[in-house]
């Protein structure tokens, strides 16, 4: 069972190029490294750094226009780079296995889980009869902390974390010498992420295989890897044991990567919310929710439906700029709340009042007009621009529609100042198509657009989750600037407690559509009380190799008990914020 591997993987001078219409792109430039049996090597880098390309070359999965130009990759006495596609196919799963990003998409939706695990064994001629295969599947599922009965289920009946475990089970079925895990938990929430990574670590220890973990999350790397390689633009920037990398980074880029992870220790000082303009305090609140809930129904005959958001009442006073974070896992109802605040969807019960006016009792013209004061920045900077137009279109439209600027020069001047507000060079940004800008530039321009319009309320729905780590703090800084300098009230929706801690004045923790804990970040995130918040905080991978990623078993048990109990537990209100009223 416990495969004994003589040697691990040794890669020497690996170079990979992509031949494109615009010339040759050197994706990987002369990288050398090795992984010993039982060792965990982390590949860190931003998108375009060549980390995935390196891993794919080991799997023989570099397709034209990509080409391996030089190098060797010895696994035992086998050079992985010289194998034919057929030989590679034979070695996969047997010697080397790949755990892909987003296992939810790599499982076949019409096959039972057990059959998919068996498939790999059959393909590689594992000499087992049917009963023995079934027994092996059960054993594998138990190994990845799944119940053997899962074998009979289809992928859609499993949660994301369970699917990722199935992908791990498939990868380890034939005891490979090398496992490559490519951002295996990027689609999971922090709680499942920790559980899946613990499983992966244990399974690898049992097998004694080498493991390469590809990722961009320095926190995860600190908690998981033994050694780390930092890649940038195809070059090896720095490599070393995890403690050395985190304690004494040699390269400025490595330091930048580490510093870009928000940590609870570093909370920048922000102005506490104060009533700026007393005269405005008498005005109706910027936004007020009165018993707002949302129920989604499936089809005509679904009488009950699924209540994504339980009745919620809060209000944010005018003239008191503040950042209120709404944190929770996917499915907690936080995005539903965002859409309700923007008036994109109708509440099932209750009213959403913007400056005292119900968002849904308006005429079509008034409904458009409300976006003069209520704006948003969304998660995906790639989808935010209409591919048909240059980026100017998205900036000029609101200026014209809201009558902020009508003359061409005025519009251009406004757009230029929007770029400058977020540190973009207007000459390199305006009059370009979105695909000519990087993801980070696009998202910064979106923030610039919001700043330019000067709304009273900004809904920021995961604005930094798809942006490279090094740009996160600059975008979050812009949000703070909007609050401090422009007096905007901001609702920051995120799954990331660390960034919520960094920017917010007040935190609402959403669990299954209900606010379970609320208060200032010092209390809620540093000293969480509700078991769900405790579990969330304990699951964050901190960028500190010596801080044990222990999770919180007691919180898990308490949460299970709470879920089991019929009546929901009351919301824990830890502190209050002037200008923000939450009714529980």
């Amino acid at each position, binding site marked *: 069972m416990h495969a004994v591997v003589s040697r691990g993987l040794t890669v020497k001078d690996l170079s990979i190029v992509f031949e494109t219409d615009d010339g040759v792109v050197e*994706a990987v430039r002369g990288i050398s490294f090795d992984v010993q049996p039982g060792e965990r090597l982390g590949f860190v880098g931003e998108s375009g750094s060549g980390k995935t*390309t390196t891993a794919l070359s080991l799997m023989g999965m570099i397709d034209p226009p990509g080409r391996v130009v030089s190098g060797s990759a010895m696994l035992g006495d086998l050079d992985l780079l010289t194998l034919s596609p057929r030989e590679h196919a034979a070695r996969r799963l047997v010697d080397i296995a790949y755990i892909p990003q987003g296992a939810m998409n790599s499982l076949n939706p019409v096959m039972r889980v057990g059959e998919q695990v068996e498939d790999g064994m059959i393909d590689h001629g594992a000499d087992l009869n049917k009963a023995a295969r079934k027994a092996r599947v059960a054993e594998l599922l138990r190994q990845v902390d799944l119940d053997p009965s899962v074998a009979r289920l289809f992928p859609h009946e499993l949660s994301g974390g369970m699917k990722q475990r199935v992908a791990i089970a498939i990868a380890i079925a034939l005891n490979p010498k090398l496992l490559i895990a490519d951002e295996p938990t990027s689609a999971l929430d922090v709680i499942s992420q920790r559980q899946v990574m613990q499983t992966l670590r244990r399974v690898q220890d049992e097998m004694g295989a080498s493991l390469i973990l590809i990722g961009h999350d320095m926190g995860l790397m600190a908690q998981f890897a033994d050694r780390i390689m930092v890649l940038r633009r195809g070059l090896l920037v720095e490599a070393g044991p995890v403690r050395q990398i985190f304690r004494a980074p040699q390269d400025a880029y490595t330091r930048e990567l580490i510093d870009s992870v928000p940590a609870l220790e570093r909370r920048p000082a922000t102005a506490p919310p104060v009533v700026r303009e007393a005269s405005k305090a008498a005005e109706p609140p910027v936004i007020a929710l009165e018993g707002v809930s949302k129920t989604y129904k499936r089809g005509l005959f679904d009488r009950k439906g699924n209540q994504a958001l339980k009745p919620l009442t809060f209000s944010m006073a005018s003239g008191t700029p503040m950042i209120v974070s709404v944190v929770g896992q996917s499915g907690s109802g936080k995005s539903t709340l965002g859409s309700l605040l*923007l008036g994109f969807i109708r509440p099932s019960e209750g009213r959403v009042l913007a400056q005292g006016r119900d968002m849904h009792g308006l005429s079509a013209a008034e409904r458009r007009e409300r976006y003069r004061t209520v704006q*948003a920045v969304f998660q995906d900077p790639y*989808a935010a621009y209409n591919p048909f137009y240059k980026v100017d279109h998205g900036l000029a439209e609101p200026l014209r529609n809201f009558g902020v600027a009508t003359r061409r020069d005025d519009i251009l001047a406004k757009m230029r100042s929007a770029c400058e507000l977020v540190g973009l060079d207007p000459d390199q940004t305006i009059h370009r198509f979105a695909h000519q800008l990087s993801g980070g530039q696009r998202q910064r321009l979106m923030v610039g657009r919001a700043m330019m319009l000067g709304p009273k309320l900004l809904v920021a729905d995961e604005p930094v989750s798809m942006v490279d780590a090094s740009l996160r703090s600059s975008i979050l800084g812009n949000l703070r600037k909007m609050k401090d300098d422009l007096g905007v009230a901001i609702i920051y929706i995120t799954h990331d407690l660390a960034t919520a801690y960094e920017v917010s004045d007040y935190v609402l923790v959403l669990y299954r559509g209900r606010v379970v804990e609320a208060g200032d970040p010092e209390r809620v995130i540093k000293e969480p009380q509700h078991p769900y918040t405790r579990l969330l905080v304990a699951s964050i991978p901190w960028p500190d190799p010596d801080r044990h990623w222990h999770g919180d078993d007691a919180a898990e048990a308490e949460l299970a008990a709470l879920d089991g109990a019929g009546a929901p537990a009351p919301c824990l209100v830890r502190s209050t914020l002037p200008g923000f009223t939450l009714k529980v």
Partner: protein
Amino acid sequence: MADAAPPAAPLEWGSSARFWRTILLYLGRNKSLAVGVVLLLGLASLVIGGYLFYDVKLAEPLSKMPARPPSADAWLGTDKHGRDLFAVLIVGTALTCKVGLLAGLIGVAVGTVLGFVGGFFRGWIDAAINLLTDVFLAVPPLLILVVIAANLGTSLSTTDMVFVIAALAWREPARRIRSQVLVMREAGYVNNARLNGTSSFGIIFKEMMPNLIPYLMVSFVLTVAAAVLAAVGLEALGLGPQNEPTLGMTVYWAMHYSASLLGMWWWVLTPVITLVVLFVGLYLITTGLDELANPRLRAKGA
């Protein structure tokens, strides 16, 4: 995730000169679109040239000696009624294309409106449109067409044919456009357009429609091909305009008078070869446009 692979650049619609240059360059790579366009342009120039330089009145019965094989006098021969088949080819192609293009245009226009209304506004109106489309998609189209055409009787003109065919031509475009709109209305830039204070009308026409142009083009060509097929099918059954020499009616008369048994191959081949050229041209254009509209095919350079 191939880190280094550059994203496929969408077509850029800058100045018109750049636009045409892009189109020409693109046609060089997209062979099936190029061949399809050449075939249809060839057919079109034959028809236009024919109207300009040939006496198309010869397509009327009793213009020439009937049932003659191709000769210097009648290049493609004559049929049993004494029609000059070269003139029939010119007039017939024009008439058949007229039916196809107009029915296709009406079908795509109606289908696009229905698809947008349903997909964008959702709710009961979407349910109603969807139900209607489903019902019409489920019934065999030829059955409905035969019933309509038979009831209109023998006095049918090609203009009537347009409306008969258009009565069913909207179904596929409606379904296709609706599915595109459903995806697109969730796109970030549509949400941003709402935040920009753009009206629903503006979102449909300024934000969504331009991105649908390739789909609309594919839809249009597909619908035209289907409309021509439906028209030829009805006419070959004898349910077309009796007094006009469309390609389908020519096929019908050739069958009616057993042209092939009589060895009058020129009577059969003239409409059949023209129809083959027309259909192959339309087919190649749809495959070519499909590649244009589907970025995944485009990126592979298939």
